[in-house]
């Protein structure tokens, strides 16, 4: 297994998909430019040609519908948006066409379209370059939604998304792009709809996705040092959701904390808490809890984002409160050396 960054893993997945299946095409703003969408599409046009890997006009709605049409023709398009926020222009095509086509035409034809949306944070991304709207996509019957947290999953889920016969929204967090991880070589897929347990423990179930999984890993390991063993479930897929794994874990732990990168009200975390409150009622020993982004857009000034996102120490605090065990999270916070508005020293802006 190679050590790759998350961005390189996505590049690897795209390269493999384009190699093994001539029906795969890959397009989006900047796909063939010198930056190659943060490196994720670097080199692809050179290798596969401008017919299969190409840039596009700033016309998100039509370009999504064109992806739907190309998919209906038999291609497997991968459309990339450098920010999820831009894809709001294309929701008609995503929701009214891509998501419904197979159903509303009685199963006659499916839309194997993958839409990558990158989500920003920090460094003044501000209100319109930082939205995490997984709750929206997860609410739409007919869509599948994935949110990888590791380089390996980024590759494996993207391959599964591309070769799934349905429209898949692939939500990719900018702060993960430089994260390194083990990535299996070749066409190795991570199944859609299955979560992964990253840490095992009986004290509490923590459910997370994307960057929240990264924060949770710090928190859970810190908790372990303090004698609290948490079950950490990385969702990987938001829809379909792996209810079985969550429910089984809660049955064991009796406690549920759900983390979310999106705004609290109407979050995926809410859906999970509701679902477990309904079906896992008898297993829950205490009030479930959510930690998510507050119900505000992300402001631009670094002075205004310091407490905006959930960080590991807050997760520790929440667990401590839920277990009624005093644990001082300050040492954890103190470990971070880079400013709060960048994912690491590698990030020097602007996007």
């Amino acid at each position, binding site marked *: 297994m190679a050590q790759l960054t998350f961005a390189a893993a996505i590049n690897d997945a795209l390269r493999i998909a384009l190699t093994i299946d001539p029906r795969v095409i890959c397009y989006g703003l900047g796909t063939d430019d010198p930056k190659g969408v943060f490196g994720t599409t670097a080199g692809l046009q050179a290798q596969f040609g401008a017919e299969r890997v190409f840039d596009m006009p700033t016309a998100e*709605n039509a370009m999504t519908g064109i992806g739907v049409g190309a998919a209906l023709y038999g291609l497997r398009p991968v459309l990339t948006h450098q920010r999820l926020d831009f894809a709001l222009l294309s929701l008609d095509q995503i929701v009214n066409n891509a998501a419904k086509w197979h159903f509303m035409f009685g199963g006659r034809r499916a839309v194997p379209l993958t839409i990558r949306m990158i989500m920003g944070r920090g460094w003044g991304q501000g209100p319109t370059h930082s939205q995490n709207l997984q709750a929206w996509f997860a609410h739409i019957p007919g869509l599948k939604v994935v949110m990888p947290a590791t380089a390996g999953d980024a590759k494996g889920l993207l391959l599964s998304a591309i070769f799934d016969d349905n429209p898949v929204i692939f939500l990719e967090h900018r702060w993960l792009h430089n994260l390194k991880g083990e990535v299996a070589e070749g066409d190795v897929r991570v199944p859609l709809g299955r979560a992964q347990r990253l840490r095992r423990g009986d004290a509490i179930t923590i459910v997370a996705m994307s960057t929240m999984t990264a924060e949770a890993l710090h928190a859970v390991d810190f908790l372990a040092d303090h004698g609290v063993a948490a079950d950490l479930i990385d969702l990987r897929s938001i829809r379909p959701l792996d209810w079985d794994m969550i429910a089984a874990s809660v049955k064991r732990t009796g406690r549920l904390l759900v983390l979310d990168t999106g705004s609290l009200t109407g979050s995926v975390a809410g859906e999970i808490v509701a679902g477990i409150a309904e079906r896992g009622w008898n297993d829950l020993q205490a009030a479930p809890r959510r930690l998510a982004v507050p119900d505000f857009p992300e402001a631009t000034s670094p002075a205004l984002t310091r407490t905006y996102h959930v960080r590991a120490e807050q997760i520790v605090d929440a667990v401590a409160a839920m277990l009624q065990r005093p644990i001082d999270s300050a040492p954890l916070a103190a470990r971070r050396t880079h400013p709060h508005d960048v994912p690491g020293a590698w990030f020097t802006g602007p996007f």
Partner: protein
Amino acid sequence: MSARPDAGVSRDLLYHLKRIRRVELEIARRYPEGAMRCPVHLSVGQEAVAAAVAVTLRREDLAVSGHRAHAHYLGKGGDLTAMIAEIYGKATGCSGGKGGSMHLIDEAAGFMGSTAIVGGTIPVGVGLALGMKQTGTDQISCIFLGDGAIEAGVFYESLNFAVLKRLPVLFVCENNLYSVYTPLAKRQPAGRCIADVAAAIGARTASGDGNDVEQVWSLMTDAVAALRAGSGPWFLELATYRWLEHCGPFYDNDIGYRSEAEFRAWQARDPVACHQARLIERGVIDAAMVARLDADIDGEVAQAFAAAEAAPFPEPGAAFTDLYAGP
């Protein structure tokens, strides 16, 4: 411009005109029975465009359309019985009862789908053409749209991309002067011609009388030939008129959004009657042949309705299938 169609083609055109008219009128006649429980947007008065498509496009060409799609579906060779069954919400419907009148599909005929969001299938048609170009076929993608859909930004975005990539797309715009009850003047600048906008975006264009099936045939024949030769997108603007209400089976000239006089002027240019009269005059057909044609069509339509009515409804559980494809 291509010459007049030969006798055989002109007879085929008459058949398609009459068949589409007959189907739409039968839907209108039976709609008040309350058994077709979905919105229906009928094309009575606008048959010429679809009829011309029937004889100019090949089966392997693909088409998409919008809310007013019956004629287009039939013109592209869609299965009549499956369409009527769909409107009746039956299991044998072309979309299994899931889609109704506004969501028709017959892939075997190259009719890839019609949907109810104005402009929604325009990029889909362009995407089909992108697929054609990638795979190097000589197919054409035909996008049916109305004068209202022209106002949607997605039309402009889609045409820009189609021109940029020189895709084999035929835009067929039926300008029937209205979007629901709203005349063009309330939606688009006075004196502006739709085809000119398409031309400025980069399409090759032609405009014509959408009630004259031979003229439509002629424009379309030329455009299709050019498209197959790699011309890139064509946009045809065809002037026509819807006789019945925007949605539903009735005449509605009384409600005030258009005048009876305007309606009569267009009715006098009935695409079906005019073409029939012309062919009789030319001696291409005679009264007996017309009677036979009518009888054949009557029979076919009656059979389609009978089959649709007799067909079973989908099982209730079918409401909860087909969400995702694959295992």
